[in-house]
C-alpha cells in the first residue's frame, strides 16, 4: 500500500516505482487528485500491471495487479 495523497507529481510515481522493487504481483496506491492518478496508471501499465481505479470522496485507490 502506497499512500501518495497530497504529493504532487512526479513523487507518487517515484513512490510507486520504489515500492515495486519488492516485485510483488499486487499493490495499492492511494492518491487524491486526477493527475497523479493518470500518471501512476500510465507507469504501472508500462511495467506490465493492470490497473483498476476506485474513486471515493475525491480520493483514488489504484489497484495494480499482474
Amino acid at each position, binding site marked *: 500500500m502506497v499512500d501518495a495523497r497530497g504529493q504532487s507529481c512526479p513523487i507518487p510515481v517515484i513512490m510507486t516505482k520504489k515500492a515495486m522493487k519488492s516485485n510483488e504481483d499486487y499493490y495499492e496506491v492511494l492518491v*487524491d*487528485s*486526477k493527475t497523479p492518478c493518470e500518471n501512476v496508471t500510465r507507469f504501472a501499465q508500462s511495467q506490465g500491471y493492470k490497473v483498476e481505479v476506485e474513486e471515493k470522496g475525491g480520493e483514488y485507490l489504484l489497484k495494480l495487479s499482474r
Partner: protein
Amino acid sequence: MAEKKNDKLLIIIAGLIIGVIAAGLAFLGNPKNMGFCIACFLRDTAGGLGLHRAAPVQYIRPEIIGIVLGAFGAAFAKKEFGSKGGSAPMTRFVLGFFAMVGCLMFLGCPFRMILRLAGGDLNAIFGLVGFVIGIFCGIFFLKNGYSLKRTYSLTPAEGYIFPIMEVIVFVLLLAKPAFIFFSEEGAGPGAMHAAIGFSLAAGLIVGVLAQRTRLCMVGGVRDLALFKETRLLWGFIAIFVAALITNLILGGFKLGMTEQPVAHTDGLWNCLGMLLVGFACVLLGGCPLRQLVMSGEGNADSAVTVLGLIVGAAFCHNFGLASSGEGPTPAGKIAVIIGIAVVALIGVVNTYVKAEKASEAA
C-alpha cells in the same frame, strides 16, 4: 494500450495548436519569438502594476489571465477544481523567485526557450543545455527522496482567490486607470502586443489545452529521465515543430546567434540561467506555465509560486538583475549563482534532513 496512444496523440495535437498560436501571436503584435513567455509576461504584468519601474516592460498581459481562467474553466467543467495547498508555501515562494531570476538571465521561460529555438535563435541551445543539466540536478534529489510534504484540502474559497485576482487585473487592463503603467510606443517589448481580444483568446485556449494535457516543459525531460515516459516530451516537441513551421510561413524565422530579438549572446550565462530554472522547477514540480495552470485549478501552493515569480521579476528590474539585449549584468550573474546555491540548499534540506526524521519514526 489504445488509451495510451490516444493520450500521446492528444498532447501532440494540443502542442501543435499551442505552437501555431504562439508563433501567430508574435505575428499579431507580440515581441518576436515571444508569442508566449510566462516569465516575460509576469514581468510585464508586474511592471504594469507598478511593482517595478522599468519603462520598456510594463503591460498587463491578457495571455496570463487567459491561461489561468482557461485552466480554471477546464478544471471546473471536469470536476477537477479543488482548493488545495499547505505544502511548504514559503519554500515554493523562494523557488519561484529564483526561477524568475534564472528566466530573466536567459530572457525567457522554458516555453519561450522553445519558441526562440523555433525562431532560429541559436543562443537558446545554450539555454536548453543548461535547462537539461538543471533538471538532472533536480532529479538527483527526487530520486533520493526529496519532497515538500503533502498538500491538504483547504477551505473552498481558497482556490478561487487567484482566479478572481486575475479577473480584477483584467478589469484594470480594460479600465486603464492612471496608476497602471503601460510602456509607451517604441519603448520596448512592453509596448509590443497583440490586440487584447486575440491575446485573451489565445491564453484561454492554451489554458484549457494545458490543463487537459498536463503540459509541462520541465516534466517532458524529467519524466523521460526518470521513467522513460515520453508523453510530456511530445507536447514540447509538437510546440517546437508547429512554431517552426508557422515562423517559416509567416517569415518569423531567422537562423543565427547575433541580433536575435530580445536575446543576448552570452552562452555561459544563457546556460547557467536556464540551469537555475530547470533545477528550481523540478523541485517545484512544474514549469512556470504549469504553475499558472495549477493555480487556476485551485492549487494555492502554485498560486504562491506565481507570486514568487512576480516578486522575483520586480526585484530583477529594481535591482538590475535582468539581462537585456546587450547581455547579462554583473549583479544578475551574482544573483544566479546565489539562486543555484539556495535551490541546492532547499534540495538538500528537504531530502536529507527530513529523511532522517522519517527513519526515526519508523
